[in-house]
């Protein structure tokens, strides 16, 4: 096998290589600037921040693979973070408060599902509207003021770390990612999600019920959004009215960077993980080397555009390789 055909093979198989390389380069660059970048404290901080976006990305990644999207999930997380704080502050045991909050998130997911499946609205537009509604509700309830949660038990969720390095929320995220990976690749349901995202019409004609799957994905996304909200409130011991503001965009970005096709039908949790790793280590790195805060926003945006360009080049090469495979076969 020649190098050319080997590299073609590689292109066809690997979705995540480019982005993994970028992530490694980013980490090495910051490490070379300041070796403390890979110090325990900083690694813990990066993992802490990964959990919130990570859990959102699981729900969003599932939606995108199934050919759907929900822009409201960041706001659902924000609203849920506020709700769980208020419930605990009224004296409800924190365990029950979390259960109620997750059920609440799931019902918000159901609203998205209903708009898309019953009224037939375009998912992008419908959930954009919902995002705005939820963010408004957060401001109305909190009057844009932080809500402290003085509850030791609740704070343990976000505050516990294993070996003083790996935070509990990060473990929760990893366990969920592994579970969803198993669902996606080893169950009939997971397969149906891919088929729906790949071609909804075909999927329906082979006996899949795309609406049923769509309902599940939105409700699942709402519940995970609520869980992310619970976690960030617990991590800060405070509900922040701005916690979820960029959540949906970050989740979409991480998923797409990680090789989830924006039009559906392909991708997986491993790619999502790499996407989150890249975004969070980059942000953390910029803070770490003392990059001015406002410029960080510019840098983060530039990284996204750069990574997308790389993906564009690679997917172009991939489709050429595919075309080649197609022609040599016929």
């Amino acid at each position, binding site marked *: 096998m020649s190098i050319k055909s080997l590299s073609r093979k590689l292109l066809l198989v690997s979705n995540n290589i480019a982005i993994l390389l970028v992530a490694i380069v980013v980490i090495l660059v910051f490490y070379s600037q300041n070796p403390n970048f890979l110090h325990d404290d900083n690694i813990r901080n990066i993992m802490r921040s990964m959990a919130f976006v990570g859990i959102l990305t699981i729900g969003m990644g599932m939606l995108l693979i199934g050919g759907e999207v929900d822009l409201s999930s960041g706001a659902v997380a924000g609203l849920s973070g506020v709700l769980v704080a208020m419930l605990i502050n009224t004296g409800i045991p924190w365990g029950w408060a979390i259960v109620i909050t997750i059920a609440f998130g799931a019902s918000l997911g159901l609203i998205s599902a209903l708009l898309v499946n019953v009224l037939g609205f375009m998912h992008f537009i419908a959930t954009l509207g919902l995002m705005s509604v939820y963010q408004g509700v957060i401001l109305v309830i909190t009057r844009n003021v932080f809500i402290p949660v003085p509850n030791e038990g609740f704070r343990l969720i976000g505050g516990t770390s294993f070996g003083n390095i790996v935070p509990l929320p990060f473990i929760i995220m990893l366990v969920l990612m592994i579970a969803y990976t198993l669902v996606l690749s080893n169950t*009939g349901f997971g397969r149906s999600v891919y088929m729906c995202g790949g*071609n909804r*019409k075909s999927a329906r004609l082979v006996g899949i019920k795309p609406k049923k799957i769509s309902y599940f994905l939105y409700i699942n996304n709402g519940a995970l959004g609520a869980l992310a909200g619970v976690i960030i409130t617990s991590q800060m011991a405070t509900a922040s009215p701005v916690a979820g503001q960029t959540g949906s965009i970050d989740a979409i970005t991480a998923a797409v960077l990680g090789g989830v096709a924006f039009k559906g039908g392909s991708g997986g949790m491993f790619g999502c993980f790499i996407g989150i790793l890249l975004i969070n280590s980059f942000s953390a790195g910029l803070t770490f080397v003392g990059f001015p805060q406002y410029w960080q926003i510019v840098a983060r945006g530039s990284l996204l555009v750069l990574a997308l360009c790389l993906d564009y080049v690679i997917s172009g090469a991939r489709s050429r390789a595919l075309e080649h495979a197609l022609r040599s076969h016929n």
Partner: protein
Amino acid sequence: MSKSFPGVKALDNVSFRADGGRVLALMGENGAGKSTLLKILAGDYFADEGEFLLNGILQNFTSPYSAIMAGISVVYQERQMIPALSVMENIFAGALPKNKLGLIDKPRLKKETMALINKFELSIDPSVPVGSLSVAHQQMVEIMKAYRRGSAVIAFDEPTASLAEEEITVLFKLIEALKKEGKIVIYVSHRMPEIFELSDDIVVLKDGALVTTFITSETTVDELITSMVGRDIGDTYENLSRNTEVGETLLEIKNLVTHDVHNIDFSLKRGEIIGFAGLIGAGRTELVRAIFGANEITSGEIIFEGQKIDFKSPFDAIKAGFALCPEDRKEEGLVLYRSITDNVSIPVLSKIRKALILDRKAEAKLASTAVEKYAVKTPGIDKLVVELSGGNQQKVILGRWTNELMNTKLLILDEPTKGIDVGAKAEIYQTICDFAKQGIGVIFISSELTEVIGVADRIYVMRNGRITGCVDRSDATEEGILSLAMADKDETGGDAQ
């Protein structure tokens, strides 16, 4: 002219000439190179070798725009207009008349468009959006646009594929008018009667090479077909090994009405193949989709194995033993960017799992059995379906519906040989007969008359959403079926034959 793609010679040293004031028909089976030739003409593709001369001047297109400027217009099947803009704006796109202020001169635009519309004796409102027009009228607008540009060559790619009979008559009148003006008309179509009605010259391509050129008035349909396929097609059907034992009634449709079809009655026995013939748009696809639970039913009864059924979705139909191979394989039959395995196993996922986990081994066995059974040409079952040829994609779909875990009792095939080469077609015909031998009832929709007559035991003919007749294979003739399919035209004094 020659053009190669990696691994394929799409055009191999093809030479011919077209004269002004004449219609040249470009004919050949699918994959013969017609589309490639049109695309080179339109500046979409560049020829590897060869020359293209217009009025003796060597042309060298670098883009579709330069082809248009040189006077070439190609009217594709997919319309290339802006649906939200008006008819006149589309016709004059790129050359809108302006007034002194530099704004669009609407009155003049309208006047000039009306002049064009009157010239071609059409009735189109110049100020409505193109998107609101019928397919046929959109095509007329596109032709006027080509005319307005002063194109010397106007090429048509299967223009009648989605037109009704009356619309075709109007189109032909238009083409006649272009011919009278001395334009070169190049016409690609698979419909024999049209070719003989319209064209003056015929160029036949096969596998990228020029087979022969005819003067239309000096040739016959038989001679033309023989030159296109290069083999006698009659034998294919005579050599089929058919089912001789037809069982009891499997499916009965009583007075079925949907949005697209009206008062449909027919029945199908176990082991029987019934054909559905008709023109494109006759409602055959819509009928089988309704039976399959994919389209809504207004009224009427579907009786399957003696019981009245009411499917809410294709899921229910599949559970009952129905299977549908849709007309549009790529859009409705397959998930292209998934593997052969995924596409084969999808309806039986619930039968190949242990607890909740998919049994990968059983799944792989299912896929490899299908690949072996239908001799799908592929290096492996993990290959993406998009990488297979049309014939092999169709085989994957057949493999899906007939694997050992499926309990298919009724198989609906909607244009199963569309876009498939002649050799693979014969294989598919035999496969259909084999299904019948297993006691499966088969509904076989096809727009190729020879094929329906050759394969089906009985042929139902549809027109405008209604069944207009039923013929046994022994009594069936192409002419008879065609007249049932186009009866309206006969009544209005048209020339159906």
